[in-house]
């Protein structure tokens, strides 16, 4: 059994066995370990006490549930699909018949009833339906992109940090290359070219208007933002005694990475997860706004804002509604993510305070994602 000296690095306060089978926890601030309570259970406890984070987490969860219920709303309440045009149709509001889109091209505003609850867009499409489907698309892209980022960044970070040398050199330079390119610009370049020709990797064929195209683009451009901190952590962890012990016991490199090092970076990955989802949703919205993300006529919050821009003075709901949903979703996941970070790494807050009072901190883990 080896005591994990990497504990301060990961910031979880956890002391774990080399085998990773069981953990004991130390109370934050150097207090005595609370026997029998795991670090994640402890983090859950701390998170439960953070009512603000939970409230915003719940807000995000509600948005996710609503968006994933879009087909139910479309079929049973609005009775229209997200791409169904109703330009020349009429709708009865308060006993009066109104054009969905007027002769001069002005779409109807919110009716506060089943059909066109939040109004219509210029093509006479139900804004509420598009909002939910758009949210579903945005969230799906955000989740898939984050999944891609986390998986690839973990593999790259572990391999680069563990093997060092040539492997590290090559991977680090590739990460630098992606890092050096502005995220949005890289996203536009990839998005524009892939939207036209689609994506073809061996037997995998993805058409240009598939959700996977923006998801893959966003997933790839964010890899360095996660892989680099992971690599830094792994570089430190690989020199620790418990890794040496595993090596002496004859464990293979892959086993050491999977069983000894990965559990020690897991809390970092958990903290990154909500932040990356928020960033992926925002980047998806930005790319879609610029025409390089989700391809029309499929809605996303970004494309809806872009479509509504030119009618802002006369139909502000076209931009306000998707904009507000985007803000709420990102705010919800961000504040919840902060809560998760605080729960997993209560000392990070202490270290921030130390920074504010010009005290030099030892090695705080930075989770901010820069653009």
């Amino acid at each position, binding site marked *: 059994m080896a005591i994990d000296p990497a504990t301060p690095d990961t910031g979880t306060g956890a002391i774990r066995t080399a085998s990773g089978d069981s953990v004991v926890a130390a109370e934050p601030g150097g207090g005595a370990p609370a026997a029998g309570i795991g670090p994640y259970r402890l983090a859950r406890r701390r998170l439960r006490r953070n009512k603000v984070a939970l409230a915003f987490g719940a807000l995000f969860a509600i948005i996710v549930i609503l968006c994933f219920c879009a087909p139910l709303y479309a079929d049973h309440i609005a009775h229209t699909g997200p791409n*169904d*045009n109703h330009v*020349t149709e009429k709708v009865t509001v308060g006993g009066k018949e109104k054009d969905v889109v007027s002769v001069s*091209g*002005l779409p109807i505003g919110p009716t506060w009833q089943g059909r066109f609850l939040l109004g219509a867009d*210029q*093509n*006479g499409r139900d804004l509420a339906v598009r909002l939910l489907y758009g949210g579903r698309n945005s969230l799906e892209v955000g989740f898939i992109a984050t999944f891609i980022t986390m998986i690839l960044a973990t593999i790259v970070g572990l391999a680069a940090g563990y093997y060092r040398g040539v492997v590290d050199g090559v991977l680090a330079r590739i990460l630098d290359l992606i890092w050096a390119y502005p995220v949005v610009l890289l996203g536009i370049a990839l998005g524009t070219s892939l939207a036209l020709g689609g994506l073809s990797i061996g037997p995998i064929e993805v058409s240009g208007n598939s959700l996977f195209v923006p998801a893959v683009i966003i997933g790839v451009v964010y890899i360095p933002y996660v892989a680099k901190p992971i690599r830094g952590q792994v570089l430190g962890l690989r020199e620790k005694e418990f890794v040496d012990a595993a090596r002496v016991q004859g464990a293979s490199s892959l086993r050491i990475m999977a069983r000894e090092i990965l559990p020690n970076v897991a809390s970092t990955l958990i903290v990154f997860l909500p932040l990356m989802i928020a960033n992926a949703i925002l980047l998806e919205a930005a790319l879609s706004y610029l025409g390089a993300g989700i391809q029309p006529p499929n809605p996303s919050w970004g494309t809806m804002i872009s479509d509504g821009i030119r*009618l802002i003075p*006369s139909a502000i709901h076209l931009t306000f509604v998707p904009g507000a949903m985007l803000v709420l979703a990102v705010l919800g996941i961000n504040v919840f993510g902060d809560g998760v970070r605080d729960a997993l790494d209560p000392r990070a807050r202490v270290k921030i305070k130390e920074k504010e009072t010009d005290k030099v901190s030892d090695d705080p883990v930075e989770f901010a994602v820069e653009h």
Partner: protein
Amino acid sequence: MGTAPDYLDPQLAYTTQAVEAHWISYTGLLTYRHEEGEPGTQLIPGLADALPRISDDGKTYEFTLRRGLRYSDGTAVRASDYPYSIERMIRIPWGGRSFVTNYVVGAADFDAGRARSVSGITADDATGRITIRLREAYGAFSNVLAFPALAFVPRGTAIRNLSNDPPPGVGAYILTDVVPNRSFTLRKNPEFASFRIPDIPTGNLDTIRVNIVSNTNSEAQQVLNNQADIFDSGDTLPPALLPQIESQARDRFARKPVPSTFYFFLNTTKPPFNNEKARIAVNMAMDRDALSRIASGFLETDCFFIPRGIVGHPTSECPYGDRPDLAGAQRMLRDAGLEGAPVTVWGQERSPRKEYIDYYTDLLNKIGFRATERIIADTVYFPTIGNARTDPQTGFADWLQDFPNPSDFYLLMDGRSIQPTNNQNFSKVNDPFIQRELRRLNAVPATELDSVADEWAALDEYTARRAYVAVYGAEAVPKFFSNKLNFDSVFHPLYFNDWSTLSLR
């Protein structure tokens, strides 16, 4: 003006913003009648004393220059200025010079640097006679001669871009005080009235100052608030301001259709639109009113390829009805066994063209196709869909006239126009009947177009019946003035607001 003219040198300019100023400052041998609608497409003598005398084989055009003409700097106009003006236009070079180099004898050699002059144009200063010889008969050549780029400039005018100090011309106004990309002024030419050229107005306003503003929103606001007098018709009126303009300025705002054709091309060489029933189904189901609303009313609906205002526009009813018949279209597609056929719809990013494609894709899905969109950047759209490697099935297309002649529109239906790159015949129509008719009708001189109007109309009705394209209308542009100007000025089908007919209230 929300968009600066491309050039203010008349022999370089091609955009609407430029030619609306040049039309009244630089007159050529021929010009157009200053009237609205189809009468405005009628050719009249400009600096020539009469319409051309055209030889029986249609290859020789003869003109005689009016006497006593002077440029705006006082220099006398001579017949020999004309060959020089054409050579300057080719050498400088003007974007549309192929209209001349493809047809005038010796012009291609001059363009290629193999000749020192254009041998097909001769002029005699003593008699004022100007003769132009063509390699082959080209019925629309008189329209080509009416381009402001083929107007007279003095012999010896520098062969370089003179946009900052435009050369002298003959016209009701003089182009002056150019501040690049900021402003320019048109001053009334006091000499022009003395030339007594019939049917060309001599102008009412002494000075017309054109300011180029950074965006059309502020341009429209200024006109709405009477801080500026004309919203340039070449600019797009911001749809968000439309309700305000229509309520506050109803008596000084109008939508004016311009001869143009907006349509969805249907590739006749590729499934499913190689099947006539698929093409007819699209034409049957299309709700043109919906597209007009999407365009904020700036689309005059139509189903024929030759637009209203151009000789040959059919007066008959649409072959597949004026009202959309979705159920009929679905039935037709089912009968043809084309239900579920995959279709990729190509479109541009700019509004409302993207919205047209959103509508069209939804329509195709409703008929029974399995349609997806492919929207690409405006700048690469036409080169992309005009490339044989892309070979698109269907998508957005439009045509704004180069000159008011049906042959200009039927270039897009001519089998000879199908090319591996920069193809304009997007539907890849190569119909023997159309080819035969075009060979005959294209040779009829523009000055005699009225004599074959019925034949052009019959051809266009045939094209509509075969549903080679799905036409939905012609673009309309805004005529929007301040309340200082009379609203009865001429809105010309080619050059939009005729500034020489403007007058103060």
